[in-house]
């Protein structure tokens, strides 16, 4: 798998260090000519490298001790590890439950919640069965989260993933793999019973490139 499609300033600077670039002005000019979009980062890199190359190694390093330095990094790694485990546990817990079940556990009727958040019961059932192909505006999840008092991560985790068949009986009858029908959120909104205003609202969010989607 290639990860070269989006070259970052860090990638360019890493290559320069690997190549053992001399921090001369001529080399800076050549680097900026090749990557004009990273002009500022390259200027900072070349000047810092020039100063660090010119300065003599200090007999005794200033700043933190080795142990203090290492402890800072260890804390950071363990913190990341803790967050990863938390996120995994959260996702596992939420994915084991359907969205409709989470809403019912809060003492709410899924159909009523659907209407309150500007969707219709059929759209919420499609979310419940993970029938949307592609992205859904984050606003939909946030509204359900707020209305039903469920953490957003739970709503997203329960409503995303492989689509769920309407009837478990289909699996028993089927001789081959079941193809569960899916559609885009846009298709579902256009085919819904929502008012024109609500349709326009959701379609506007879908078209808005700046609006986050999940």
């Amino acid at each position, binding site marked *: 798998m290639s*990860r070269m499609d989006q070259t970052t300033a860090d990638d360019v600077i*890493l290559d320069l260090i690997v190549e053992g670039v001399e921090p001369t002005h001529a080399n800076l*000019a050549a680097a900026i000519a090749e990557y004009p979009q990273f002009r500022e980062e390259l200027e900072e890199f070349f000047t810092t490298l*020039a100063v660090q190359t010119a300065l003599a190694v200090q007999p005794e*390093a*200033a700043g933190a001790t080795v142990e203090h330095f290492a402890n800072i990094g260890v804390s950071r790694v363990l913190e990341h590890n803790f967050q990863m485990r938390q996120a995994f546990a959260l996702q596992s817990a939420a994915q084991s439950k359907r969205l409709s079940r989470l809403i019912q556990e809060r003492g709410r009727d899924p159909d009523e919640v659907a209407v309150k958040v500007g969707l219709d019961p059929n759209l919420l059932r499609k979310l419940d069965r993970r029938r949307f192909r592609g992205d859904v505006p984050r606003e939909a999840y946030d509204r359900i989260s707020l209305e039903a008092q469920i953490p957003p991560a739970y709503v997203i985790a329960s409503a995303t993933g492989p689509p769920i068949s309407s009837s478990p009986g289909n699996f028993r009858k089927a001789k081959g793999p079941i193809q569960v029908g899916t559609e885009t959120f846009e298709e579902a909104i256009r085919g819904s019973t929502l008012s024109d205003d609500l349709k326009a609202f959701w379609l506007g969010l879908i078209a808005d490139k700046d609006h986050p989607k999940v």
Partner: protein
Amino acid sequence: MSPRTPTQSQEEEPPGAAPLTCVSKTGEPYTRHREVEAQIAEALNLPIPDWAAREWRLETLVHLIRQRGRDNDQAVLGKLTMAFLEKAKPVVDRNSKGFGVADTEEVQIKVADKLGDLLMQAVPSRTSEYLEIDAATVIKQLTLAATGKSRPKASAFSTTNSDEDGKYTATVDRLASEDPDPAAHLLAQEAAASGGVWRYLDAITDPRHREAFILMKLYNWPLKNGPPGVPTLCDRYGMSDRQIRNWINEAIEQMREAAHGAES
């Protein structure tokens, strides 16, 4: 260190580590050093609690840390990370010279945190994967990034180094001339490379003066009128060429004083 060549046969490949996923600038797949692959294979044949007691290369430690992270083994994860950072610290020191204690510590904290982020990065990037190929290069990159212009204040500087034999005064005097002769620059660079002029750079009290001196005298930055789109010294500091000449002269004077003072 040279990476393994793609012509190696599969039989020679030690079992164990999953291949890296990124590619180099020229499109070559990232590959670990052969010795790192061998160390990883060796580790996988050991009981995991024994890993922390062994001596591993930085790159091997990176791989083992990531594996322990995925398996939620916090005890071994912590010990391996400690070993990695202890080995990483000298690289940070070598690339964060010239700052006072507080600024140096600030740089070190930034680098330690960033290394922690890269070690545990969920989606690999070229930089995070290069840690398994040549960790020292990545540590150098992170340290240089943490010591940039807008980062630490660089307000405090270490004092002038003493000169035991005064051999380099002539080089400092030569730099005091405004001679744009490339040979003069070459001499300065040679003096720097041989441990000469740079022992007086610490005598320059203003970090901007010191940086301007290094850029102009050692790395040929023009005061003004550089190639289009490429910063000159005037661009970098937003100052007139006259002002920067004054900086350079002040820097030279401070270095000269340090050199002559060491002689007497």
